[in-house]
């Protein structure tokens, strides 16, 4: 099965109103070309699941500035003043989630779990409206799994089957999101032949990857 497609084809998998996971941490490890193409195509009303809304001139930050997004589920918006402005103006729905909880919710979404139990957020506004579960006398918050229609991720090296290797701190949420969406598109800095990545070095196995696009590098 041929997975390498053009940017144009890749972005045609994303429709108005979809939930899209975007890998990266403050832009590092984010799929820049795919995001730029979403903006160019004018896809609207996206719900974006990501660690943060980056900076106004970078990746997810641009999606917010260009108003392709109606809701974000993230742990941090402090580096993008436009996110805060749209939130305060009632133009953007912002759901703030502790970073470790978000990571596990995404992982749970891809791992077939009904949720996760975490102590993070107990006694804070994070617990409001959520079920609590006592296990052996300890209280936890039940946090539900998160899934998406599409995940767009970034990897440094990808073989033609879709096996991914991430680079340094660009890994972050990428391998988790690759498991949690119906369609997974990886933007690869480098595409290599099958067999040229040592199986021991594969960080995301190819079965999770639907499509591959060549990155800018």
């Amino acid at each position, binding site marked *: 099965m041929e997975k390498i497609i053009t940017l144009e084809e890749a972005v045609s998998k994303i429709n108005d109103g979809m939930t899209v996971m975007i890998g990266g*941490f403050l832009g590092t490890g984010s799929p820049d070309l795919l995001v730029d193409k979403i903006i160019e195509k004018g896809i609207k009303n996206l719900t974006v699941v990501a660690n943060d809304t980056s900076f106004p001139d970078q990746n997810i930050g641009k999606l917010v500035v260009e108003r392709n997004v109606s809701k974000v589920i993230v742990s941090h918006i402090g580096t993008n003043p436009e996110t805060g402005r749209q939130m305060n103006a009632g133009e953007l729905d912002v759901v*703030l989630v*502790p970073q470790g909880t978000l990571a596990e919710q995404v992982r749970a979404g891809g791992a077939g779990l009904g949720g996760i139990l975490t102590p993070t957020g107990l*006694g804070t506004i994070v617990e409001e409206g959520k079920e609590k579960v006592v296990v052996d006398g300890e209280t936890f918050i039940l946090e539900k799994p998160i899934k998406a229609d599409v995940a767009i991720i970034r990897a440094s090296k990808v073989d033609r089957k879709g096996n991914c290797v991430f680079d*340094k*701190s660009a890994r*972050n949420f990428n391998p988790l999101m690759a498991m949690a969406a119906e369609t997974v598109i990886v933007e690869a800095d480098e595409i290599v032949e099958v067999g040229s990545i040592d199986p021991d070095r594969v960080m995301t196995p190819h079965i999770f990857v639907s499509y591959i696009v060549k990155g800018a590098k």
Partner: protein
Amino acid sequence: MADVKAIIAKRVAMELKDGDLVNLGIGLPTLVANYVPEGIDVTFQSENGFIGMGNAPEPGAEIENLVNAGGQPSTVLPGAAFFDSAMSFAIIRGGHLDCTVLGALQVDEKGNLANWMIPGKKVPGMGGAMDLVTGAKKVIVAMTHTAKGSIKILEECTLPLTAKGQVDLIITEMGVMEVTDKGLVLKEIHPDLSVEDVQTATSAKLIIAPDLKTMCL
């Protein structure tokens, strides 16, 4: 008073033990890395996905895909390891992190911490702070004692909490305070200050340690 930030960072560093895994928050806590005592081997974690963080690189020597949790260029030391966000927070939440050092907007005598939002004004999001404060074995708040004269150490926090009852130690340029069942115990004091000076800058009633020491500057 000499450089306030240096006084705080140096005193925090004295809390670190040989072999500790430590997470430093953005801003003042980052300076702690500069004062780790000779002979103490500390591993620093960056919650975006690695342990073994080194100093910031020289300008021009930035390494692609290697940033800290503030998105700024970083380096790694020999023996470092990269991982995804789920593992990063498994380390934090799972009891594998010896110490976290964070700033505060408010902290109170019950060990409650508020450092992630000011309703209606500034809502940057909690990022990894809630997980760090909930999961780390030891939580140190490192901050200037007051914010331009406004009191930050209270009987009870009024801002939304980051975590409930998790703070162990508060270190400011005025002194060192330990959170105990009975309240805040002033254990060390800046050599130029009186107990009254510190109490005046603090809303919570300070319990004075019988063996109150002078802070080592």
